[in-house]
């Protein structure tokens, strides 16, 4: 029954409702089976045709739940208890057949890669059309048109695994546009993209104009705020806090928003959060100018591939807070992995870690000096409890048991993991996992920490907590090297920043000097 729960409405009443808004949600409460508290609590809202609405909530505050309700995934794919009324156009997405929902609502995910079902761009765009049983004869023109809409008309025959992150997300959008749903729900579409790709993505959305009704869930408010004509704010308990034009929402709910760990637009966040406001951070303790990492003219290539690094050079002083930035594929991760001895020695050039040539250091020596934090904390977990995780490298180095005990206790309290001591690392929250992964990398007293995109896709609260603890470590003398796309972090925390471009070091200097170099910022896709 396509009319779903509102089947009791008369046709006239229904039509009246239709005129009132394309998306109508009334007293919606959603609770997941394993949870005591609802993800959405008594939410009522209306979105008119052609509106672009920005949906904000703290982590776990029900944004994605609302996205999944509107696109019919809850309760049809993901089971949850749903109460209240939902209507998108003529259908109730919670009960309508999937084909009808997909024709009304297109849902875009954070990570386009894992959403692809086929191997090439044209097949992927065709995939949705095939499911809607569009006649094959119509497909080529719809594929061409949707590629033009996302500004990538020449990518039709490309393999999906050859696309950059920004291209992949635009193709994922093209897949939805081809199915021509009037409503687009975008769930943190730019969380994994560099600043330039983010800007390009939003300008494509702006280009769609009022032809689509868009519900946008986003962290990077600066980039997308001018798109939205309304902001909807949910609180931690999934209750509707505000639904109004952006300026008013930010003005009236400033405290709530900052408290909830949502990124505020720069010009509204206040001076303490603004990178250009000239915050003077406590300088690290004065230290004799000694090198932590010296990289000289390093050239590196994977077998049968063009070089990733070409004569890259980098000097990192002990005690500095250093950021490494650059576009996808510029060699940042390769350079970091080389420093950690994870890749074969470079064809040319030299790497010294705390004075010693890399080849002369064993893995044990190296990991005692430098800790390496991966993007996904789960990848680094090797035991079954938080305590064992912290004790692991100590035991591997045959520390005496009493010292291990003391060290673990110290780490647990320093990284606020005391209550999680006997929990399995995989069951921790995102923020706890991140803290644990940093703690394990400092266990044996490492003097330097390399972090590869540690804040990707995290909300403001988790990111700030991590950055503050890095900053505290830095003040204690730990050298920090962070790889990131986030210029706000670079501006707020790093003393020096290096730009890698096509495998070469294109810039080394203080962040504010880099930010003034418009040409470089653009060619390195940082702005």
């Amino acid at each position: 029954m396509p009319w779903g729960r509102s089947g009791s409405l008369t046709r006239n009443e229904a039509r009246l409702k239709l005129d009132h808004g394309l998306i109508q949600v009334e007293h919606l409460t959603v609770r997941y089976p394993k949870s005591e508290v609802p993800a959405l609590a008594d939410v009522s809202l209306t979105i008119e045709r052609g509106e672009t609405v920005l949906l904000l909530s703290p982590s776990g505050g029900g944004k994605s739940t609302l996205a999944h309700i509107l696109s019919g995934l809850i309760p049809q794919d993901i089971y949850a208890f749903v109460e209240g009324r939902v209507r998108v156009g003529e259908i109730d997405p919670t009960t309508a057949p999937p084909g009808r929902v997909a024709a009304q609502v297109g849902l875009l995910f954070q990570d386009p890669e894992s959403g692809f079902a086929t191997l090439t761009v044209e097949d992927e765009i065709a995939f949705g059309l095939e499911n809607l049983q569009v006649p094959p004869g119509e497909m080529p023109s719809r594929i061409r048109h949707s590629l033009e809409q996302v500004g990538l008309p020449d990518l039709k025959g490309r393999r999906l695994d050859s696309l950059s992150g920004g291209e992949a997300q635009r193709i994922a959008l093209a897949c939805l546009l081809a199915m021509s749903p009037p409503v687009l729900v975008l769930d943190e579409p730019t969380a994994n993209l560099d600043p330039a790709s983010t800007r390009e993505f939003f300008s494509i959305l702006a280009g769609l104009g009022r032809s689509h009704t868009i519900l946008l869930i986003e962290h990077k408010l600066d980039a997308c705020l001018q798109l939205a004509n309304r902001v909807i704010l949910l609180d931690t308990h999934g209750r509707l806090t505000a639904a109004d034009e952006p300026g008013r929402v930010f003005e009236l709910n400033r405290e709530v928003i900052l408290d909830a760990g949502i990124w505020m637009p720069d010009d509204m966040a206040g001076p303490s959060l603004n990178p250009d406001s000239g915050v003077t951070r406590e300088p690290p303790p004065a230290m004799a100018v000694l090198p932590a990492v010296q990289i000289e003219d390093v050239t590196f290539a994977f077998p049968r591939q063009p070089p990733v690094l070409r004569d890259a050079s980098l000097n990192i002083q002990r005690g500095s807070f250093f950021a490494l930035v650059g576009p996808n594929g510029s060699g940042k991760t390769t350079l970091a992995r080389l420093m950690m001895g994870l890749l074969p020695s470079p064809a040319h050039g030299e790497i010294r870690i705390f004075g010693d040539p890399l080849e002369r250091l064993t893995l044990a020596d190296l990991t005692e000096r430098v800790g390496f934090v991966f993007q996904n904390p789960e990848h680094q977990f090797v035991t079954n409890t938080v305590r064992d995780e912290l004790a692991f490298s100590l035991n591997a180095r045959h520390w005496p048991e009493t010292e291990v005990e003391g060290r673990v206790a110290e780490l647990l309290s320093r990284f606020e993991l005391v209550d999680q001591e006997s929990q399995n690392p995989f069951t921790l929250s995102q923020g706890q996992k991140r803290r644990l992964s940093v703690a394990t990398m400092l266990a044996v007293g490492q003097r330097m920490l390399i972090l590869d995109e540690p804040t990707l896709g995290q909300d403001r609260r988790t990111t700030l907590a991590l950055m503050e603890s890095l900053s505290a470590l830095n003040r204690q003398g730990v050298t920090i090297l962070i790889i990131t796309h986030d210029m706000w972090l670079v501006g707020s925390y790093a003393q020096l920043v290096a730009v890698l471009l096509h495998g070469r070091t294109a810039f080394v200097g203080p962040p504010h000097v880099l930010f003034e170099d418009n040409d470089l910022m653009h060619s390195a896709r940082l702005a």
Partner: protein
Amino acid sequence: MFTYLASASPLHRLNPSAKLLALALVAAGATLAFDPFVPAALLVGLWLTTWIVGKAPFFRMLRWSLPILLLPLPLVIFTALYADLSRFNAPTILWEWGPWTLASEGLLIGLGLGLRVSCFMTTSLLFITTTDPTDFAVSLIQNLKVPYRFGYGVLISYRFLPLLRTELETIRFAHKVRGVGRHTGILGRWQDVRRLALPLLASAIRNSERTALAMDAKAFGAGSERTYYRQMKVRPRDGLFLVAVIAFILVVYAVAIRSGVADLQWIPGA
């Protein structure tokens, strides 16, 4: 091990299901003979077809041939040592030690079996290097009437394998940085594997859940029917290929029987 090599060779243009059927016939041909000659001849035929008609690069073919010939080697040796020699009147003994007897008759049976396995591997070499995975999945659905959910399963596994490989490499690095992976001995190795398995499994499950959600959000599985962008038709050239393959198998058998090298145990008195 083998990967698809995109090109527009005549083998690439064949209907994947027809190609699969033809290769199944070759495999059957290799199964029915117990001598080394028949599977060896079929193997050479497949190899040359892949190289010349399928336009696969020569050096890559050589690199891939090594495991094809070497992997069945233990099978050859053990079959030769344990072959039942009682059906031969006067086996030619080459070597004897304790319970083991190596006779030239046994060696021939072992070689026959090993080459049969090599021949199977060469059929997959031809198929994988010359068949576009998407064409294959669509052809399974359209020509062989395989349920489309299953056909897409095949396609998604093509997507997932390289992703999992990158993921595994990252996890290995992450563990190495923590000082794991230096274990020796069978027990230590087993522990290492278990340590890698959990994060790999966790991310594989998470990835496949995401893929499933994204597919459902695009109405996959909404109806019993779908339309298709690609049309995989069966054309006259597919029939021609099938006929050529059958003719080739028959010629190999004819030559083998004529020259007396064939060992066809299923034909009484042969």
